[in-house]
């Protein structure tokens, strides 16, 4: 009897045997325990990568207008977006894979935003935050306001609100993570305002008038306000 008990106490679990002696408890995660004796999973590489992508998102530190204040609150204490694996704001677009567009986009800023978006490495995702990025919001009738972020860059998730509460933004980000994990991507914009060289624009009265102000090679964005929704 007593020898049996000693045997049990001395016995190592398979897990312990694999870890070897002296391994710190910190390496022994819940996940590891759940796997038990077989610390291997079988999955498709793509699926794994998508899961990883969604679970570790680097956000671009990108503030435009009112919504950016709520976005700051989402990152900061109390709401703490980092809990969801999406809270590392990067100041450079080269290091970011998600851009939250928080605010009204106006004619002067849209080319710059497009440029920042273009500088982000693929795969990249866009959360458009607030009514202004959905449709122009309260400023839709303004002479200078682009009617939604989708006119310029493709958006994956729209979070409506003016401004959306931090909880709403977190929900939007969580939805984006879900979509990424499932490998879904957003449709390309229906009617984008493109950055193109001035020389490539269709020659009309306006372009001819501006010809002495803008070089042929300069990048420009042309707004056809009359056709905006």
């Amino acid at each position: 009897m007593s020898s049996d008990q000693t045997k049990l106490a001395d016995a190592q679990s398979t897990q312990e045997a694999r870890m070897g002696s002296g391994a710190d408890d910190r390496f022994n995660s819940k996940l590891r325990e759940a796997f038990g004796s077989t610390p291997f999973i079988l999955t498709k590489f793509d699926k794994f990568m998508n899961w990883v992508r969604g679970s570790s998102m680097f956000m671009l530190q990108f503030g435009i207008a009112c919504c950016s204040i709520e976005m700051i609150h989402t990152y900061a204490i109390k709401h703490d977006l980092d809990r969801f694996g999406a809270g590392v704001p990067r100041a450079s677009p080269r290091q970011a894979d998600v851009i939250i567009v928080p605010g009204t986009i106006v004619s002067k800023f849209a080319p710059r935003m497009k440029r920042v978006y273009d500088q982000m490495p693929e795969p990249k995702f866009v959360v458009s935050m607030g009514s202004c990025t959905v449709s122009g919001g309260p400023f839709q009738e303004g002479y200078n306001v682009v009617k939604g972020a989708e006119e310029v860059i493709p958006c994956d998730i729209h979070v409506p609100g003016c401004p959306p509460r931090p909880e709403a933004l977190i929900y939007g980000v969580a939805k984006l993570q879900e979509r990424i994990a499932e490998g879904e991507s957003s449709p390309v914009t229906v009617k984008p305002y493109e950055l193109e060289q001035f020389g490539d624009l269709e020659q009309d009265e306006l372009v001819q008038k501006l010809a002495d102000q803008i070089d042929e090679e300069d990048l420009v964005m042309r707004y056809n306000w009359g056709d905006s929704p």
Partner: protein
Amino acid sequence: MSLEKRTPVVDDVGVTEDGVDYDALADLLGDSIIDREHHVNAEGFVIRPDDVQSVLRTLKDEAGFDHCSCVTAQDYDDRYESIYHLKKYRDPTQEVSVVVPTPKDDPRHQTGSDVYETANWHEREAYDLVGIEYDDHPDQRRILLPETWQGHPLSQDFNQDQPQVVSLREHANPLQDDKQSPDDPDTMFINIGPHHPATHGVLHVKTVLDGEQIVDIDPDIGYLHRCEEQMCQQGTYRHQIMPYPDRWDYISAGILNEWAYARAAEDLADIEVPEYAQVIRTMSAEMCRIASHSLALATFALDVFGDFTAVFQYGIRDREIAQDLLEDLTGQRLMFNYLRLGGVAWDLPEPREEYFEKIRDFLDDLPEKLAEYHDLVTGNEIFQMRCVDTGILTPEKVKDYGATGPVARGSGVDYDLRRDDPYGYYDELDWDVVTEDGCDNFSRVLVRLRELEESARIIEQCVDLLEEWPEDDRTIQANVPRTLKPDPDREIYRAVEGAKGELGIYIRSDGTDKPARFKIRSPCFSNLQSLAEMSEGEYIPDMIASLGSLDIVLGEVDR
């Protein structure tokens, strides 16, 4: 105590014990005046377009009007018009409007920017949006809209549907030959922004460096120009305009902004606000100020320390509490839309005792938190090295640039509209105007920190008042007609002390239920103009600190 009624300044020409004597001013200006107008806030002198400089110079030097608060441009059916709203830093209730009409076919007149530095940007804006040209203006360019924009959107003949082309030119190679000045090939051109974590939004600063020192700096704004004035001109007085002020200074200063509109429109339409509502307004406005200054401090620390963790989070922590209080009151975290013409939207949340308890808890904790800030921030040696004696703005320059708010008070200019041009319930309460004499980045931050204490004092007194307020006398709104149509051709310029400074509104009514002209005088717009003055000859990190200490918010700069 600084709140005592100041003795009227009578040594200037045209000032008597009862205020401004406009006839004396008219005598002073003589033949330059072709007509006189009566605006609700002040008399207006209509002057000849080629006498602008001499008139402004006389008013500034001899009559003591040292504050050019705002320049409003507008397009009538038969003429264009610029209005210079002049005030005195010593006593902002002494006002005068200088009205300059110009013909419809050739809208141009003399610039006022030689007299008041601040008119430079205001006139550029007038040129950009309305289309008046200013002779001898040092820098007649568009300011808010892209340089390739066609037409002037607030003039009557603007076609909003015409296509526009906007170029992306600023990204040229900084080492290109033409970016270097020919006489000094060592200079280098650097773009800071519009997407940059330290510019507090979408500001673009064109900087020319000599070695590491800034020789020339040109803030390029307009990346958030979302047509606020047009939106307000399209809305009806009673309900449709009030949501927009929240979105000018969106750093939670909503109620302060709403109050600017409420004050102007109420004075325009002669609406009396019940006392009870005034107390609630005063209390909630100061909560907004606390929220706004907390974020200003948090982002300033972020700029100077470059640290997203410690001080920044402290600021946000306290802001969250203020926002919760405001949410309980207004139902919104950020865009309150709580004031109404003639009062506020609804009474305090029930149960009242619980709400008062919450506010008192917040106020009780505040001194301890402020001590923490002083330990963390202002007492920090590195912080002091960064901020003391950098970004100097002398009191003369403050007045020249029309800077107001904590920026002016950090340079020792004792100017606070809550005391000097009292509104709301401020003149019944016991509080002090905070000034510091350092004129540097450090003083401006210190002013904000000390203003938090004063705001807390005001809120505390308001809570005391509201607790005692008799239950049968709690009128929250005056009786205002459903469709408000102020009498035609009334003009008013009214300002309140926003979180960033003097936030003024000019409204002209035309007898309909919508304003004919709605002009916003934003404090940040004027304050930002002084950035060049502060940072020339300094290093880029000092410029960033100055920018942080100005506490601009681009929604209000660009409108």
